[in-house]
Structure formats: C-alpha cells, structure tokens
C-alpha cells in the first residue's frame, strides 16, 4: 500500500476497437483531454488495446514511465477487465491498480452524435482517473472446488453431460423429476436428417447412465434448495414417493399384470394420451431405471385404502411395493452444476383456428411421433382417432412460433421434424402429404439435402400460413374431411385442401416452472423465459452465477446435435474448473473498521449470507471474509460508515461520482 504515498503516475489508454469506438468517439480528443488532468503521466490512443501489442504497451509503459495506476477506456469490464488486470500485473503492478472505462457498449454503440459521445467518453474517463487514485493493492482469494457435480435434468443434454464427466472420473449426481430419464428424445421415433431410430441411439446411453459407477441417478426427484457458491454448493434434493423400493424392484412387471385393473384405463402420459396405462406402470419398455411406479391419483389402494393389493402378492418376497413411502430428502455438496431442464411443447389449443381439441383428427407433432412409433399406442399403425387410415395429411408449420400472439421466436426444429414426420407418414400410409410453411429453414449439416429428398419423394410444399382448419364442406370432395384454407402465396391463390388428418408442428417453449428453477439456481432469463447465457457468443453455456452452466432446450430451441454439443461444452467447463482445483474470487469483500464500529448491530440481519457476527468481547461487528460475497449492502447501511468494501470503497465511488460530473 506504500504506493499511495508515492507520487501518482497514471497511465491512460483509449482504445479504438477498430471502428467500433473510433467511428463515434474522437479518441484523439479523449486522449488529449485526459492528458491534461492531474497525475496523468501518460495518455495514449491505440487501435486494439486487448491485442498482444496493446497489452505489451501497458507493460512497457509501466516499466519505462514508472506508472503506478492504469486506466483503459474500451469495452465492457465484463468482457476485458480480466485481460487488462493481467497486463497490469505482468507489468509489475498489483492488478487492482487498474480501472476500466466502458466507452463501447455504454457509449459508441448506443449513441450516434460524435460530439456527444466524445464528451461522454471524456467524463467517464475523468471519473476513472479520479477513482483509480484511491485504488489499493489487493490480494486475490482462492477457493477450493468440490470435485462432485450435479446435473439437473435427464434429457439428452443431461445424459450426455453426466456421461462425459463420469467418464472423466468425476462423481456426478443426475436428478430427473420424471420417473425415467430420456426426456423428449425418448418419445421420438426417428431423428432428422439421418433417420436414426431415436430409441436405438438413446437407450444404450440411458442404461449406461443407470449402470455407471460414477453416476448417482435420482429419478422422480427434484432440487428444492441451493446454497453456497462456486466450488462449494449445498443442494437439497427431494425424492417423491413412487411407492416402490427402487433397489428391490427388478423391473419384472409382474405387479402390472397382477393389478386389479385388468385392462389399462388411464391416460398414458408417455404416449401423449393416445394410449392407456394402469395405476402401476413403467413409462416405456426401456425406461431407466427399470423400475415401476405407482400413480397415487389412480391407484385404488392409495385413493381408497380398499384394494386386494394383488400387486403386492405378485411382488411376493421381493417386497418392492411400499404404500407407506413418503417424500425423502438428500443434501449433497457439489462444486459445479449443469442445469439442463429442457423445454415444453406449445399448447396447440392456443391457436383455436386449427381446431386442436375440437376435431379429433387434428394431432400435435409429438402425438404423431408416438403414433408412428413401433412401440407406440398403435404399434406403429397410423390410424386416426376416428379409426381411419389417412389418404391425405396436412402438416402445418409454425404453430405457436413466429406469431406475436403466442411466441415470436422461430422454434428452429419444426421445419426439420415436420419433414421427418412427412417422410415417416408417407412411408407408413402412402398418403398425399402437404406441408404448409412460411419459410423452410434448413440450417444444418445435411438438412437442405433432406428437404431435397422430400421433394423427390413427392411430398407437397405450399408456402402459406394456414388460415383455418374446419370441418365445414364447400364441395362434395370436402364432405367428411377436414379442410385447410390457405393462401398458396407462391401461386397467389387461396386454396381449400381437404385432408383426413392434420398435424400441427407445435413450437418449443420454456418449461412451465422455468421461473422457479431460475430463481432456485440464481440464473437470469430473457423476457420470454429461456435461461440466459453469460455471453451469446463467447460464453454460451456459462451463466451469471459462477460454477453453474446451462445446456440444451432450457436455453432456447435447439435440435439434438446442438444440444449434445452444448452438453459436452458445459461438461468441459465443469471439468476445467474441477481440474484447476480452485477459483479465484474477486476481492470485493467487506470488512469492519473496528475502531469506528459503534456496535449497533444493524448490519447483522442485513447480510443474506450470515457473514457478519458480533464480537462480544470487543463489542463490534466482524465480517467473515470467507462467507462474504461482496454485495455491499451492509456498507451502504452502516450508520457510522465503519464498513468498507474492497474495490467499492466510499472514496472510490465518491470520486467516481465527482469525476463524471466534473466534466461539463
């Protein structure tokens, strides 16, 4: 701290960022002005400060010009503060003698008037010059990282991330709220554009997860509480009662056969309600874990207490059925987490013009996935709800996408899955297939080729967003059919096309409880509810909470290849942290000036991390640095001004305020 007493020698650098800043801000003028301010030993402009030569310049100047403070005016500190602190340190100074001014995101990119932007840049620079004078040398604190990882969500993203890390030798907890992992992908019949059987590529991975020695798989479970911080999270997981002792059940399914309901009677969620199941069931044959579940809403014994319990008889001495099961909780410690909670599909009833829920032969795409699936409710036979074999089928794209009344975004996967379903339906039925689209989007490897193949196969494409689906017939050929009214925009005519079956390509939406999940993990959300990445380009799987990463459909609509790539990236981010072993923490913690503290205790209840304690012997407040996360709330509310926050000391902020206002 001795340099405080030395004469201040501040080095100032204004970055052009190519044209990004220089086009709007007169950098030469800013450098000139700052050069006239007191204590500024040197003021320069440079094309790219973040480049190697730019950083080298800082280091060289520190050495040659004996600088003891550095200010760079360039982009957002969230982007390059780290870079320039590094350069400052490499030049031989404590990195916290550096301060950064944001004249790109907050200035050149948001203003057009060159004069105004230049004036603003000068004011911001002056504030930094005044602020940096008060900076102190600080030490970076290192925090150890717990090597275990939590993955939330057992869809393809969670499965892939968990496997990647488990294979690298890390202990992984995989928490899934449904009775089985597999997510949406487990419901698909084939995948585009290769037409791999979805089950064939997914289920081996599922059972690997189930058997992996490094993975603790908790299905039918939910995260209810998250405490701690990067490297040291404490997580509470709730296990919902499935009324089956998981370890005892061998998946023989004899209980299902023995159930007092002789035939399946209840809506089968896995098959989108197209099939039936019993109160005791397994979602689908390859479910992982291979364990049945009892649905308390429909089980006679759980509902009424009056049942012959033939299932228990059938289970016999395995004794896997336990009607007394209650919720249980586990508390685990992990260092990092991946949130991969997925998406939900759009509720087609919200577009009443398409008749979903009114006309039985209107289907959602996910329903059709089950309908064409060999293990689906009809064994793969495409037969409509009213028992017909369709001769003509209309597939309507963009249902609940690109529509200001529902969702404005493009759901990205619907064009491709619609074409996949078109092909599968054609194979299964030989029907005439019409795709109604606004734009066909095929931005992926082999996707456009897939579109070409569809055209070759004679699948029809009509460019036009469907006006309505109706059962009202205008002509004899429309009698008894569903008629699609649409403008064929390429021909310029309105057409009425009668079909036997309508498939709605519903879009993707954030999960219903995305907001709750977001709060649980302290993530940010865009306005539409997708989880927000730290940077759309450069930190696409990171979040604003260190040590928590996101992957897959919870972040926005994406297809399987992208989801898997992202899951791999998130796993790599976790592994990088774990293998480094520690994280460096911003030294922005607060401390109490014992000699000034009056012992009023008003700060103590304010701290959300209970980092402040009252020392009875000295009658002053004491802050536990390890628990403090540097929000500064206690500092702002201390009546005697005896709490100080590193990096945000009162003097530093006051001088910044004066600085921005000193310049006219």
């Amino acid at each position, binding site marked *: 701290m001795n340099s405080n007493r030395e004469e201040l020698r501040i080095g100032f650098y204004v970055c052009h960022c190519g044209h990004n800043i220089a086009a709007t801000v007169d950098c030469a003028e800013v450098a000139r002005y700052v050069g006239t301010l007191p204590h500024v030993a040197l003021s320069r402009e440079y094309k790219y400060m973040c480049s190697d030569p730019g950083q080298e310049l800082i280091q060289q100047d520190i050495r040659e010009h004996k600088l003891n403070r550095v200010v760079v005016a360039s982009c957002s500190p969230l982007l390059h503060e780290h870079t320039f602190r590094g350069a400052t340190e490499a030049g031989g100074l404590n990195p916290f003698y550096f301060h950064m001014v944001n004249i790109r995101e907050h200035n050149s990119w948001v203003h057009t008037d060159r004069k105004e932007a230049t004036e603003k840049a000068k004011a911001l620079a002056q504030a930094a010059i005044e602020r940096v004078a008060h900076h102190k040398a600080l030490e970076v604190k290192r925090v150890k990282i717990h090597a275990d990882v939590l993955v939330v969500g057992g869809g393809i993203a969670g499965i892939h991330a968990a496997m990647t890390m488990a294979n690298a030798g890390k202990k992984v907890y995989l928490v899934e709220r449904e009775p089985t992992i597999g997510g949406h992908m487990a419901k698909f019949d084939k995948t585009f554009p290769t037409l791999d059987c979805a089950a064939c590529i997914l289920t081996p991975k599922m059972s690997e997860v189930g058997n992996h020695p490094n993975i603790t798989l908790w299905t039918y479970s939910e995260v209810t509480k998250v405490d701690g911080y990067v490297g040291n999270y404490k997580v509470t997981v709730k296990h919902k009662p499935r009324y089956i002792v998981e370890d005892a059940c061998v998946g023989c399914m004899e209980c299902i056969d023995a159930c007092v309901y002789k035939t399946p009677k209840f809506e089968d969620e896995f098959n989108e309600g197209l099939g039936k199941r019993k109160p005791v069931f397994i979602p689908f044959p390859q479910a992982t874990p291979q364990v049945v579940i009892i649905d308390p809403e429909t089980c006679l014994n759980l509902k009424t207490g009056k049942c012959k319990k033939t299932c228990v008889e059938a289970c016999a001495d395995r004794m896997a059925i336990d009607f007394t099961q209650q919720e249980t909780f586990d508390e685990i410690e992990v260092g990092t987490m991946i949130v991969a909670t997925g998406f939900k599909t759009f509720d087609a009833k919200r577009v009443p*013009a398409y008749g979903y829920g009114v006309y039985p032969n209107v289907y959602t795409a996910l329903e059709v996935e089950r309908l064409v699936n060999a293990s689906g409710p009809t064994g793969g036979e495409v037969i409509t709800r009213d028992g017909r074999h369709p001769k003509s089928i209309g597939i309507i794209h963009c249902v609940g996408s*690109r*529509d*200001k*009344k529902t969702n404005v975004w493009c759901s990205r996967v619907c064009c491709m899955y619609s074409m996949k379903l078109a092909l599968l339906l054609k194979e299964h039925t030989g029907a005439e297939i019409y795709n109604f689209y*606004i*734009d066909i989007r095929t931005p992926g490897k082999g996707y456009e080729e897939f579109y070409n193949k569809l055209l070759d196969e004679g699948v029809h494409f009509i*460019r*036009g*967003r*469907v*006006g*309505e689906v109706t059962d009202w017939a205008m002509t004899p050929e429309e009698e008894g059919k569903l008629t699609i*009214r*649409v*403008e*064929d*925009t390429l021909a*310029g*005519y*309105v057409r009425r096309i009668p079909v036997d079956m309508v498939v709605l390509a519903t879009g993707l939406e954030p999960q219903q409880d995305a907001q709750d999940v977001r709060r649980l993990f302290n993530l940010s959300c865009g306005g539409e509810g997708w989880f927000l990445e730290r940077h759309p380009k450069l930190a696409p799987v990171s979040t604003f909470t260190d040590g928590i990463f996101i992957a897959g459909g919870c972040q926005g609509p994406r297809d399987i290849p992208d989801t898997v790539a992202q899951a791999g990236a998130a796993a790599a981010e976790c592994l990088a942290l774990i293998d480094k072993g520690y994280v460096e923490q911003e030294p922005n913690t607060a401390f109490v000036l014992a000699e000034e503290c009056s012992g009023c205790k008003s700060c103590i209840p304010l701290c959300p991390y209970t980092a402040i304690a009252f020392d009875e012997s000295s009658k002053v407040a004491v802050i536990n640095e390890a628990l403090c996360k540097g929000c500064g709330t206690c500092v702002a509310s201390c009546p005697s001004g005896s709490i100080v926050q590193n990096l945000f000391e009162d003097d530093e902020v006051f001088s910044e305020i004066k600085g921005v206002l000193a310049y006219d």
Partner: protein
Amino acid sequence: MNITRTIKYEADRVKGFGDEVMKVPGCEKLKDCIQCGTCSGVCPLSVYMDYTPRQVMELTRFDFKKEVLSSKTIWLCASCYACTCECPREIRITDIMYELKQRAIHEGVYPRKFPIPVLAQEFEKMVTANGRISEMPLVMKLFMKTDPLGAMGNWQMGLDLMKTGRFSLASEKINNREQLAKMFAAAEEKA
C-alpha cells in the same frame, strides 16, 4: 395474341406511397409483414379478389400505387376484421384497406359505376348533411347511380319490405345538424 409487359421497373413505383400509408394511424405495422398469407387464408372475400390481401400488403409496401388503388380487393373488403385478428405480425389489415379506399376515392381511381365506392360516398354525403342514414333512400340512390335496371331485379325484396313494414322513404335527421356541421368544419381546420 395480346401480350402485356408485366416486369416492373423502378419507374413504375410511386416512391413514398408505401411510407405515406405506413404513417397513417393503424397502418404502421405494415413494415413488419412477412408475407405469410394468413390474411388471405382467413379472408372470406379473398375468393373474389384480383390481388389477395397479402399481395395488396406487398404492393403497398413497395409503392405500386396504381395497382393497389385500382384493385377490386380493397372494395371487396367487408371489414370483418378476421385478418386483423389473425395476423401473426399484428398488422391491422382492415385499417390499411380503409386507408387505401380513402385514397382511391380521393384520387377517383376506382372502377366506374362500381357500386361500393359510390355507396360509401353517398353514405358520407347523407350523414354529413343529416347526421343519420335513411336506409331506403340511400339504397335507391345507389341503384340510380350504378345500376338502374338492377333495382328492378330486386322487386321481390322491395315487396317483402313493404309487407313487413320496413320500407320507408322518410328522411331521418338529427335535430342539431348545425352543431354537426360546425364540428366537421372545426375538424377540417388546419387538419
């Protein structure tokens, strides 16, 4: 064989026309059109239109003033608002049609003896003068101006109306016509 040139040169556009329309209250969102055709798909009258509503949107946006203002489409619009309600871009297509109708009347480019603009104008005249509409006299006037013989074809309806006590040639008027006239005059000042 009679052929016509269909290519459009830049000189065929009346530059600024689209922008002007998009400045009118209710018509701003035309910019956002993605040409999906929902408007045409739901329009009950698109059956008879020379340009579909979607095409009218595009032609307007690109300044093809002559084509739009002389189209039948704008006059076939029955203001049922189905397009406005269904448009995924929240474009108020019905309002844009109104604006185009106003411009067509203003410039006198609608088809001759075409009954709808005549009706609109006669309607406006009658309301401006009387404050109210007298339905039968309005209809009579319309037929006289557009299709004197057609009126004869509707003798059956006329008879029905007489028999059910709905045929009245009396002129409906508000009392304070002077007030209304003052209001219109004030509205036109500086407007």
